[in-house]
């Protein structure tokens, strides 16, 4: 069900990892084409999934089941890409490109979906709207973009139309790179082993680029209300779920707008107090960490 055009064009470009190029026992060209087309299909699926995770209709709380399923799909693709080494290649290429690029950041790819390229982009076609919904797969323009890349397999999907309704809380800082929040916190948390590689590899290049990117980001996101200045650029999936957790009456949340570790919701509180209701086992442990955070936050507020 992947678009027919994609297959034909991609198979011609040298998208294979450099490993097998000098091998005498090279697989046949047909197998190579099949492999690369699979990788590209996989990449395009990854891009689609990441966009789905963000483009949530934020008037109503998004469907948790759908988000979980998409996030699991993303995780699955990430794992597979890590296993066959594509992951490292892609993130290294990304960091190398970022270090080398100007503020135009013409190497922004779908993995940093949020920051839109502006007219400063060099040698890049004007961003085309990505058909996120409804049409079949990638458009021809994206094919052109990818062909310009010469490292590894990169889905050159540029998301040019960011819905103004997109919640900042859902901005995924995928693979440890979160250009929009970097300015505020400057730290990165590695959620899992997979992202460790890319996080360390890209840290240096990031900071320079990020300041410039934040300008671009501001143009895009300037009008957005920042509900949750994320304490740390957690990978996409985690940001997503940390916001879903509802701490209605938690004073910290109201005051600081921060939601880091999951807090005990009001119902848990009611349940643990009620003589009848059994309290969920997790509530006591999260309560303790909540108190620590509360102390920490109070310190910040008091300014000690």
């Amino acid at each position, binding site marked *: *069900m*992947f678009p027919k055009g994609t297959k034909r064009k991609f198979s011609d470009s040298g998208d294979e990892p450099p490993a097998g190029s000098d091998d005498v026992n090279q697989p046949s060209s047909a197998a190579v084409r099949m492999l690369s087309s699979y990788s590209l299909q*996989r990449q395009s*699926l990854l891009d*689609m999934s990441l966009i*789905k995770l963000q483009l949530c209709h*934020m*008037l*109503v*709380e998004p*469907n*948790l*089941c*759908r988000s*979980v*399923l998409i*996030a*699991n*799909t993303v*995780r*699955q*693709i990430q794992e597979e890409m890590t296993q066959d080494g594509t992951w490292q290649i892609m993130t290294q290429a990304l960091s190398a490109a970022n270090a080398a690029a100007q503020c135009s950041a013409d190497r922004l790819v779908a993995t940093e979906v949020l920051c839109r390229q502006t007219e400063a982009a060099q040698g890049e076609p004007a961003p085309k709207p990505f058909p*996120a*919904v*409804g*049409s*079949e*797969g990638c458009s021809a323009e994206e094919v052109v973009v990818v062909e310009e890349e010469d490292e590894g397999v990169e889905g050159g999907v540029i998301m040019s139309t960011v819905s103004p309704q997109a919640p900042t809380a859902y901005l995924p800082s995928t693979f440890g790179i979160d250009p929009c929040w970097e300015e505020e916190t400057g730290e990165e948390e590695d*959620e899992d082993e997979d992202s460790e590689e890319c996080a360390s590899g890209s840290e240096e290049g990031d900071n320079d680029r990020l300041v410039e990117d934040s300008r671009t980001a501001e143009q895009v996101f300037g009008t957005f209300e920042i*509900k949750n200045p994320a304490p740390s650029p*957690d990978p996409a*999936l*985690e940001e997503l*779920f*940390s916001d*879903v*957790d*509802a701490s*209605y*009456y938690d004073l910290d949340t*109201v005051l600081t707008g921060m939601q880091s*570790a*999951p807090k005990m*919701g*009001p*119902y848990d509180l009611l*349940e643990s107090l*009620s003589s*009848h*209701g*059994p*309290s*969920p*086992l*997790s509530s006591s*442990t*999260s309560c303790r960490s909540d108190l620590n955070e509360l102390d920490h936050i109070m310190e910040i507020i008091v300014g000690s």
Partner: protein
Amino acid sequence: MFVVVVLLSLVLETFKSDIISTVEFNYSGELLATGDKGGRVVIFQREQESKNRPHSRGEYNVYSTFQSHEPEFDYLKSLEIEEKINKIRWLPQQNAAHSLLSTNDKTIKLWKISERDKRAEGYNLKDEDGRLRDPFRITSLRVPVLMPMDLMVEASPRRIFANAHTYHINSISVNSDHETYLSADDLRINLWHLEITDRSFNIVDIKPANMEELTEVITAAECHPHQCNVFVYSSSKGTIRLCDMRAAALCDRQSKFFEEPEDPSSRSFFSEIISSISDVKFSHSGRYMMTRDYLSVKVWDLNMENRPVETYQVHEYLRSKLCSLYENDCIFDKFECCWNGSDSAIMTGSYNNFFRMFDRNTRRDITLEASRENSKPRAVLKPRKVSTGGKRKKDEISVDSLDFNKKILHTAWHPKENVIAVAATNNLYIFQDKIN
């Protein structure tokens, strides 16, 4: 024995613009309740057979309409709470009035629907218009008399069960003890007493301590039809857990775990998504349960956990289209399924306004379409077929011509007769067996 040819169709367009979101017959089948996206509940009542109007046997007409839920706004999260009715469940009838539970994402309400066909006349202190009578004019006492009046059906909210769910409620189920019911959201299941609204027991909690580790959610839950201590819940990973409330206060550890091992040959990136169970229903007998995932319906014997006893393919031709369906979000559609009264047949919906019925005994299946063009009242529905191969026969429809916006997610089967209700977007169709 399941009659394949379905005849009578009644198209009721009470809904105009609102999409029907749930359909449910009551215990006797006399009443049919529907909920819609606008928070309204419409109840239909079956006409009694009468000699005067022999052809109107079994027609369902509007009995009561009321606004069950209103849209709300959560100020702390700056999010709307939809008024869409997710589920309606009838309570067993205990007196002249009917009661049902209706729920949106956050709040469950118990509604009492009662009839009034008499009114008192001849009050002492006020006259027929309701105006107070001048006390000096009252010279004698009289006893008010009950006089017949036009039937009036009133719905009043008797209980409101609120503030117990952080996540979106997807299921409610009345227990066989007729005193309690459960409500399930994405991560928790609560047990309520029908009389008590300010307290509920949390009996299942799958929320991880760290939300970042969340990989599985609850998709549906139901109480066992006879054993009031047993219930099941399904997950987004295609598993079903049967729990016994006698085992522990918090039923996090299941008594039985139902999962079919994955077929490694058909594994793809979409495997998990299509295995997510969208509905689970016990059979009337209580011996079996049925689950609906994206492409199939499975019947499970409660005594066998490692695989279903029957599997029915609903629209296997979509397996090659999963990427497109993922792109347009159709892959996340939640189809429901239902048993007939004798558990010999099951029904579920599909796209293009198609719905499918499977006879468990004869293993025959049929695809029918709920559409206005093809349904005149009393007309016989023609079986439909989707062509999967290259060659398309005359009456068949090709997979690419299917309309994925026309989806039948909600269907219901009369508890005793072969009458079915099918919701196609904003139209409700009621079909029944051909009568000679």
